[in-house]
């Protein structure tokens, strides 16, 4: 199945829009602003609609099939969230309206902050950051502001485990810190000896994901927090994997000083097409004054008028690192996350984590005797296999991933984390049925068999996807960045 580019179906003079006749005098554009070398496509409305609808049919989405993309938490996003986000009270407002006229929106932001505080155990939350890595950046800026505010100017290093998401060292470097990589031990935990060896008065903090990208809960989390704190550093929590512990453990009680929440993962807002996401940050008391703002606040009704509603508004924390986003964060995402949290409640959120962990372990046990499992432990919400199948040396993880598409599944995350060779990182999430998990496991086992008996089937896969195997090497070596006639 192929679909021409919109440029290729273009015919001179066709137009998908008809504009009313101009009722003001026309003025010619200055000559230096007129460009005629941009061949914009000219198509009819019907051709335009068909083109994009056909492209949309080629998509794989959570709504069309299983999507076990590790570390991305591609859970089903309940349609109820969409209904809430489309209420006119949320869509027909403008950020420049007076606060008096958007009390409902501000109340939602305030209550979402309170929910996230209750879930995480943190003292304060800001909804400003627009995505996970943006939250990391906010967290590192706060850690820096905290040290500088105390006159502690000698801290130049941030510790990052070798299993970390790539965004961690990037966020660290963007804040001007030197990244120091800490090894993992044989059980997939942070290597405590390596950590101790790097902890000194130059350490601003450590960035840790728990459970980590191997899907393993660090068994020494309390000790790690003590080691980092005892040298004066702060512990940053990457909340990407919060889905594994939401409603069960509170990151603040595990020793984290600051953490971002990926609302789009844990709290079920659509993602995976490049956004929008939301990465609120939660902090302990010691960091609350540094939060990015504005933050939603509630002022109780005055005592002499007991019938009045409380008033909601916005404020900047006293030592705020400032604004990180225009206006008030990605508001539509906040509405969806709020709807999800209120729908499930505390007990429902706990079941999210329990079922996410159960589903991952079910798949792990079904696959671990066929695919190498480098860290053989009970996992949390995801697990990492290796695609190095005994007896199928010519087959690589990329071939397994491509073949999975023929069975109607989105491939897992591959070649990450970097510490597992030929990694396959599988996160089923809590929303999948036993039948779906079994169908996926059956496909994985059959592919392992094919790898040994008919490796070319894997090398040539996929067969049923809209496009066959893409030459990603050539695409990287000889990129064609724009269409040319």
């Amino acid at each position, binding site marked *: 199945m192929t679909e021409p580019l919109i440029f290729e179906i273009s015919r001179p003079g066709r137009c998908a829009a008809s504009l009313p006749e101009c009722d003001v005098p026309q003025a010619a554009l200055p000559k230096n602003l007129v460009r005629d070398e941009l061949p914009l496509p000219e198509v009819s409305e019907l051709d335009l609609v068909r083109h994009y609808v056909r492209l949309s049919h080629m998509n794989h989405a959570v709504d069309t099939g299983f999507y076990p993309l590790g570390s991305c938490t591609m859970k089903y996003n309940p349609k109820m969230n969409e209904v809430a986000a489309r209420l006119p009270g949320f869509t027909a407002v403008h950020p420049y309206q007076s606060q008096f006229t958007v009390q409902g929106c501000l109340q939602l932001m305030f209550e979402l902050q309170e929910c996230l505080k209750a879930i995480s155990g943190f003292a304060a939350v800001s909804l400003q950051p627009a995505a996970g890595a943006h939250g990391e950046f906010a967290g590192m800026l706060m850690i820096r502001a905290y040290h500088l505010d105390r006159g502690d100017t000698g801290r130049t290093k941030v510790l990052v485990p070798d299993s970390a998401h790539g965004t961690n060292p990037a966020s660290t470097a963007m804040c001007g810190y030197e990244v120091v990589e800490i090894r993992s031990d*044989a059980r*997939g935990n942070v290597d405590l000896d390596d950590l101790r060896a790097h902890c000194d008065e130059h350490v601003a903090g450590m960035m840790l994901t728990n459970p980590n990208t191997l899907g393993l809960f660090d068994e020494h989390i309390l000790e790690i927090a003590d080691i980092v704190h005892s040298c004066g550093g702060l512990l940053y929590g990457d909340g990407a994997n919060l889905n594994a512990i939401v409603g069960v453990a509170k990151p603040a009680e595990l020793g984290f000083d600051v953490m971002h929440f990926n609302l789009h993962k844990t709290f079920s807002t659509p993602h995976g097409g490049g956004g929008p996401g939301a990465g609120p940050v939660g902090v302990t008391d010691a960091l609350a004054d540094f939060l990015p703002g504005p933050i939603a606040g509630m002022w109780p009704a005055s005592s002499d008028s007991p019938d009045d509603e409380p008033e909601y508004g916005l404020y900047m924390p006293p030592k705020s690192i400032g604004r990180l986003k225009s206006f008030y964060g990605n508001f539509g995402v906040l509405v969806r996350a709020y709807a999800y949290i209120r729908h499930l409640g505390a007990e429902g959120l706990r079941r999210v984590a329990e079922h996410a962990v159960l589903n991952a372990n079910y798949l792990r046990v079904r696959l671990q005797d066929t695919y190498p499992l480098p*860290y053989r432990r009970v996992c949390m919400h995801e697990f990492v296999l290796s695609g190095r199948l005994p007896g199928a040396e010519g087959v690589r993880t990329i071939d397994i991933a491509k073949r999975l598409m023929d069975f109607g599944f989105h491939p897992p995350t591959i070649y990450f984390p970097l510490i*597992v060779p030929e990694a396959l990182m599988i996160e089923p999430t809590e929303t999948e049925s036993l039948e779906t998990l079994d169908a996926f496991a059956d496909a994985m086992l059959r592919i392992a068999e094919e790898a040994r008996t008919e490796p070319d089937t894997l090398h040539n896969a996929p067969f049923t996807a809209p496009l066959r195997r893409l030459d*990603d*090497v050539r695409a*990287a070596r000889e990129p064609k960045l724009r269409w040319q006639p």
Partner: protein
Amino acid sequence: MKVEQGLLYQESHEWVRLEGDEAVVGISDFAQEELNDVVYVELPEVGDTFAKGDVFGAVESVKAASDLYLPLSGEIIAVNKELENSPQLVNEDPYGKGWLVRIKVSDPDEAKDLLSADAYAKFLAEEAQKGGH
């Protein structure tokens, strides 16, 4: 997978061929195989100087980008210009046409910390045993 005799290696999988007070540096056959198809090689400028263990460049494949660590301190006196248009040479001929840089060695004594071909082959075998890393 081949470990070429006569070269010195380090655990981050770079090799060195000593030629008088100069040395040629590349990545091992094991490293190129792990990386998969190399699509871009970022190399330093001639005249740059680095200490042993410094990052002097990066190789990028379709699956990952990896830093390159200089096995010996020295000044860059040549870089492999061919790699700009033909990064696949790193895959096709890692010990030959896929070389990365030539350096003027500033402290030849540092070479004694590097691994012989046999020691490197033993290191690779041990790592394969561990499985994880």
